C-alpha cells in the first residue's frame, strides 16, 4: 500500500547538522533542519498537522481560546484521516444517556477498566485526564451537530454501558460536523499537504515546518515545499502507522501485508518518526492492536465490524471445528483477537470462527440489514441450516446453544465468565444472523510520549520540546497493552483540545 521506506534509515536520531546534510542530498526525504536564516514562505498562528478527531478538535478549541489564524494541513486529498472510517464509538463516564438509562459510572471506574486492559503498563495520569474531560469532548460533537443512536452500548472490557455511537455508525458522523464547524469558525483547511520535517530554533524549539504542496499520496509528484512559520507552535495529530507494513513488521513480524487492516491508507506514521528524530521518546511501539470484530469477507472496517461490536454482548462466538464457544465475547480486544487467531483446521490453516446472534436482537442495529444485503453476513432459519452452511458439527453446536442459553437465564457464564448483563433475556434462538470473524490490524498503542498537557518530552533533556504538541494515535503509552474500544475518540478529542489549551496558554 505504502511506498514509504523509513526502515532503510535506521539512524533516525541524528544531530541536526547531519540531518540537514541529508536533506540537501535527498530532497524527497523528510528531515528537520535549523530554522536559522530560513526564508519563510508563510506564517500562521496555530499549525495543526492531521485532520482526524485530534486535529479537528484542536482547531476548534484553539479558535475558542482566541486564536485568529488556525491552519490544518492534511496530506491526503480528503479530510478526516482514519477517524472518518472507523466505528464512531465514543466512551465517556457520567453522560446524559447514562443518567437516562440509570447506569452508575465514574471517572475512576472508566480508568480502572482501561488499566485492567492495559495490563500494568498504561499511563494512569493520561487515562484519568482523558476520562475527566471526555464529556466536554462529547459536548463539542453535540455542538457541531453529531447525532447518536438513542442507546448506549457495552463494549468489550468495559464494566458498564458507557459508549455512544453516531447514528451513521461511523466516525464520519463526528469528523464531517467538526470539519464543517472548523470552516464556520474560519479555520483554514489544506489538503494534499505533506509534512516534510520540522524547522527548529536555537534552543531546539519547534518554530515551523516544511510542507509539500499539491501532494498526491503514493505518487511521485514534485510539489513545491514551503517553509511555514508557526507563531504559537505545531500540533502533531498525524495518527497511527497501521498501514505502514514495514514499520509494523519491524515491531511485530507477524503483521505481514497479508494481515488485513482497518485503517485509512494514509496511516503510515511519518509524523511520528519525524518526532523521534527530533528527540521524542518512543513508547510501546510493539503493541499493535487487531480488531476481533472484523470480517474476512470484506475489506477494512466495512459493515461487519460495527455489526459485531453491537452484537457481541448477546451473541455466541463458535469455533467451526468443534462447534463450541472459545472465548468471552466481550473480553478486551487482545484476548479476543488471540483466541480467534487460534481457531484453525486440522492442518493449522485459518478457520475464521462465526458469531451467532438471534435475528430478533441483531436487527436492532442498522448494519444488520447491510451485512445481509451485501453478502458479508447470512440469515438462517434453523440450526441445521446454519451448521451445514459453515460445516460445523451439529450435535455439539446444539448442546452449546442450550448451555449458553442457561447462562443467559442464570446471568452467570460458567464457560468464560462473560458479563451477561447486556445478554439478559436475549436467548440464542432461530432465526439467526451469522458473520465470520478474523482480526485485522486496527490501532497502534505506541507512539511519542506526551504528558497531560499534550507536550512532547525530549529523550535527552527530559524537558518538553518547546513549540511542539501531540495528540491522538500518534501518541503512545496511554492505553498500554490493549486499548478498550470507544476509548480512542475521547482520547483524540480531549488531547487535541488539551494541546490547543496548552498552546494558547504558553
Amino acid at each position, binding site marked *: 500500500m505504502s511506498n514509504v521506506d523509513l526502515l532503510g534509515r535506521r539512524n533516525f536520531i541524528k544531530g541536526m547538522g547531519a540531518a540537514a546534510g541529508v536533506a540537501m542530498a535527498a530532497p524527497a526525504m523528510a528531515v528537520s533542519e535549523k530554522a536559522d536564516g530560513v526564508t519563510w514562505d508563510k506564517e500562521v498562528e496555530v499549525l495543526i498537522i492531521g485532520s482526524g478527531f485530534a486535529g479537528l478538535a484542536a482547531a476548534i478549541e484553539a479558535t475558542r481560546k482566541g486564536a485568529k489564524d488556525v491552519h490544518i494541513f492534511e496530506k491526503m*486529498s*480528503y479530510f478526516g484521516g482514519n477517524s*472518518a472510517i472507523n466505528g464512531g464509538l465514543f466512551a465517556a463516564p457520567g453522560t446524559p444517556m447514562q443518567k437516562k438509562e440509570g447506569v452508575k459510572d465514574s471517572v475512576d471506574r472508566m480508568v480502572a477498566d482501561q488499566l485492567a486492559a492495559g495490563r500494568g503498563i498504561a499511563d494512569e495520569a493520561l487515562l484519568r485526564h482523558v476520562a475527566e474531560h471526555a464529556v466536554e469532548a462529547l459536548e463539542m460533537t453535540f455542538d457541531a451537530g453529531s447525532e447518536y443512536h438513542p442507546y448506549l452500548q457495552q463494549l468489550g472490557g468495559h464494566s458498564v454501558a458507557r459508549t455512544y455511537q453516531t447514528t451513521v455508525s461511523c466516525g464520519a458522523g463526528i469528523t*464531517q460536523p467538526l470539519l464543517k464547524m472548523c470552516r464556520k469558525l474560519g479555520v483554514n483547511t489544506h489538503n494534499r499537504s505533506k509534512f516534510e520535517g520540522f524547522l527548529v530554533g536555537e534552543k531546539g524549539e519547534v518554530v515551523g515546518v516544511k510542507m509539500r504542496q499539491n501532494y498526491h499520496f503514493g505518487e511521485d509528484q514534485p510539489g513545491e515545499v514551503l517553509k511555514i512559520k508557526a507563531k504559537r507552535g505545531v500540533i502533531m495529530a498525524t495518527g497511527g502507522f497501521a498501514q505502514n507494513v514495514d514499520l509494523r513488521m519491524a515491531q511485530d513480524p507477524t503483521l505481514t501485508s497479508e494481515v488485513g487492516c482497518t485503517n485509512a491508507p494514509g496511516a503510515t506514521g511519518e509524523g511520528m518518526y519525524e518526532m523521534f528524530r527530533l528527540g521524542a521518546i518512543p513508547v510501546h511501539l510493539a503493541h499493535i492492536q487487531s480488531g476481533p470484530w472484523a470480517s474476512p469477507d*470484506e475489506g*477494512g472496517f466495512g459493515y461487519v465490524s460495527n455489526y459485531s461490536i453491537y452484537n457481541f454482548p448477546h451473541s455466541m462466538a463458535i469455533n467451526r471445528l468443534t462447534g463450541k464457544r472459545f472465548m468471552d465475547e466481550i473480553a478486551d480486544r487482545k484476548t479476543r483477537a488471540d483466541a480467534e487467531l487460534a481457531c484453525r483446521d486440522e492442518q493449522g490453516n485459518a478457520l475464521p470462527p462465526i458469531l451467532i446472534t438471534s435475528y430478533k436482537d441483531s436487527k436492532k442495529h442498522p448494519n444488520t440489514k447491510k451485512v445481509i444485503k451485501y453478502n458479508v453476513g447470512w440469515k438462517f432459519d434453523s440450526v441445521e441450516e446454519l451448521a451445514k452452511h459453515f460445516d460445523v458439527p451439529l450435535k455439539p453446536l446444539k448442546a452449546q446453544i442450550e448451555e449458553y442459553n442457561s447462562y443467559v437465564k442464570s446471568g452467570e457464564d460458567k464457560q468464560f465468565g462473560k458479563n451477561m448483563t447486556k445478554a439478559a433475556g436475549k436467548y440464542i434462538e432461530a432465526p439467526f444472523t451469522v458473520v465470520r470473524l478474523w482480526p485485522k490490524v486496527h490501532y497502534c498503542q505506541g507512539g511519542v510520549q506526551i504528558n497531560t498537557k499534550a507536550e512532547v518530552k525530549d529523550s535527552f533533556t527530559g524537558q518538553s520540546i518547546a513549540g511542539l504538541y501531540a495528540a491522538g494515535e500518534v501518541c503512545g503509552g496511554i492505553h498500554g497493552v490493549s486499548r478498550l474500544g470507544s476509548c480512542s475518540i475521547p482520547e483524540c478529542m480531549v488531547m487535541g483540545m488539551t494541546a490547543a489549551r496548552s498552546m494558547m496558554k504558553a
Partner: protein
Amino acid sequence: MKTLNIVLALVLTGLVSLSAQAVEIRDHHKDVIGKDCKACHDNGIKQFPSDQACLQCHDVDELAKQTARSEEDKWQNPHNNLHYGKELPCQECHGEHESKQPMCSNCHTFKFDKHKE
C-alpha cells in the same frame, strides 16, 4: 498541438507501465476535449490535473443527483458519501488514462455498475 503530443510522449516513455494506449480518453471526452491535454492538466503536463480541473465541466451536485441511491443506502452515493460528503476529489476513483477501482471497494462489497474502470 504537435509539441504537446511530443511532450506527452516523452513523459510517458518515462513511465514504464504505461503504453501509448494509456493516452486513450473516454469517448464522451473526445468531442469536447480532443487532444488538448492542458484542458485538464492545468498544473502542467507533468502534473496530475488539479482537483478543480474536472469541475470546469462537471457539477458535483448534478453528479450526486445522478448517482443517488435509495434512502437506506443513501450514504453509498460516491458523489455525496458518508465519509467525505461531496468533497472527495474525482481522481480518487476516476483516472482518464488508467483504470481505477472505486475507493469504496477498499472496505465495501457494494458495487457501482456504471463505474468505468
